[in-house]
């Protein structure tokens, strides 16, 4: 059989088919029914990456630094039972279940572009709820200015945490106006599946105009504060990863350009595409940063 370069690309087709079968099998096997989210005008109409791509190319250093590590090892993480501690400057602090924060009838589908700081990108159909709805449930006190998030810390289930790659547990934060922005969601599903573990089950943040690392996974703690919170990557390499981490083609990473990106799944010769400021969400979010120097507040 003679094979050409053109035979390489259609792999996406069989990957899609495989993921469809896998998703079907998972559906049949698990009592957790498929998720459906209401369509949202905030979704992009770009074609989403396949389930296979989204779940097999991940940065989740809790399971290792390789892109395949999360898919390989995340299964060891227990996600049931799960609770999220909401505290700090809130009216109703306490322990919340995923179902309390993201009830089925409130779920929306948000098809978002995701741009990684490593200059690759995907399009992902998340299922989730606006973060603002969750914060409002807990009752935001007027003095709160920032939101801080924390990932599960369980080295016996998360093998990467046995190594001091980062200062565990992983922590991230948002300014209050960023957190309350309608684009910011807490996601509990992917396509119509409950969130896969390697993507941050059972509940994770998604902030589509910021580099992917801001969108913290497997959240166990949300704290409202009046001070800019600790952010793991900012702490690890402050010259490379700022607190804001807005996608910005004009501000290079010290070690690589951010002007262009490679879309995962575009094949061997798919080329690069230009990176859009705020990952293309500038119309909705640029006003949040009016008057700020984004080369300093990167």
């Amino acid at each position: 059989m003679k094979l050409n370069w053109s035979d390489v690309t259609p792999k996406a087709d069989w990957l899609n088919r495989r993921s469809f079968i896998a998703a079907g099998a998972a559906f049949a096997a698990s009592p957790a029914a498929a998720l459906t989210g209401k369509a949202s005008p905030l979704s992009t109409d770009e074609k989403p990456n396949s389930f296979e791509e989204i779940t097999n190319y991940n940065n989740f250093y809790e399971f290792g630094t390789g892109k395949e590590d999360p898919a390989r090892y995340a299964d060891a993480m227990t996600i049931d039972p799960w609770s999220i501690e909401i505290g700090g400057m809130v009216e109703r602090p306490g322990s919340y279940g995923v179902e309390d924060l993201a009830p089925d009838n409130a779920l929306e589908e948000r098809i978002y572009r995701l741009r990684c700081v490593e200059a690759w990108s995907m399009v992902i159909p998340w299922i989730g709820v606006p973060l603002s709805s969750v914060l409002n449930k807990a009752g935001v006190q007027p003095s709160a200015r920032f939101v801080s998030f924390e990932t599960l810390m369980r080295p016996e289930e998360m093998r990467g945490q046995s190594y001091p790659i980062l200062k565990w547990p992983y922590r991230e934060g948002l300014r209050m106006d960023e957190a309350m922005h309608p684009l910011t969601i807490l996601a509990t599903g992917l396509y119509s599946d409950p969130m896969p573990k390697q993507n941050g089950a059972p509940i994770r943040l998604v902030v589509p105009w910021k580099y992917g690392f801001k969108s913290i996974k497997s959240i166990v703690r949300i704290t409202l504060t009046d001070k800019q919170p600790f952010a793991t990557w900012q702490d690890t390499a402050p010259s490379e990863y700022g607190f804001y981490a807005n996608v910005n083609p004009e501000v290079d990473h010290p070690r690589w350009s951010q002007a262009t990106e490679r879309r995962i799944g575009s094949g061997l010769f798919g080329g690069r595409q230009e990176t859009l400021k705020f990952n293309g969400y500038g119309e909705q979010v640029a006003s949040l940063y009016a008057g700020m120097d984004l080369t300093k507040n990167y």
Partner: protein
Amino acid sequence: MKRQLNDTLRRLPVWAVWMGGLIPLCLLVWDIFTGGLGVEPVRDVEHRLGRTALYFLIASLAVTPLVRIAGISLMKFRRALGLLCFTYAGLHLLSWVTMDMAFLWSQMVKDVLKRPYLLFGMSALLLLLPLAITSNNLSIRRMGGQAWRKLHKLVYIAAPLVALHWIWALKTFPVTPGFWLIVILTLLGLRVAIPRPLGRGKPKGGLKEVS
């Protein structure tokens, strides 16, 4: 035992090393066409070529310490190992230019000048280029053994640069390329620590070491 091994090695033709050395490339091509590369094939192609180049570089650096310490001579195959390294390094660069950067020349030039890891990699390749070009008997004759050996010491600079190229490209300090940097520095250090084969005294009459 040592003699037996050396006898066997003497009988092994150089082309067999070339054949063996091209196996990783065949496996890569096989994986490209059978979908064995995962969801980001560009990165896999690029990284596998780069890693293989580094392994052959280390193999060629290991030849001299091996003969000095263990008395096992792979000297006959060193040229092939070096040229295999350069072949993979060249393909690694080619995959970056075509697949990763998609011929965005202006961005590539800017990136190479600005990014330490690209600067390290590109310098290493440029240092290895004259070595590859002069890897033939004609060049040794034309240049004279002394000058040729001197030129080929450029690999001592290129090899650590290759490891730094890998280390600097990653977000956190990575274990694997860090390990290979230590291996390279050890191999270079052994040249200084053991300047002649073990068990042999000082060569008489100021005989020059050929290695």
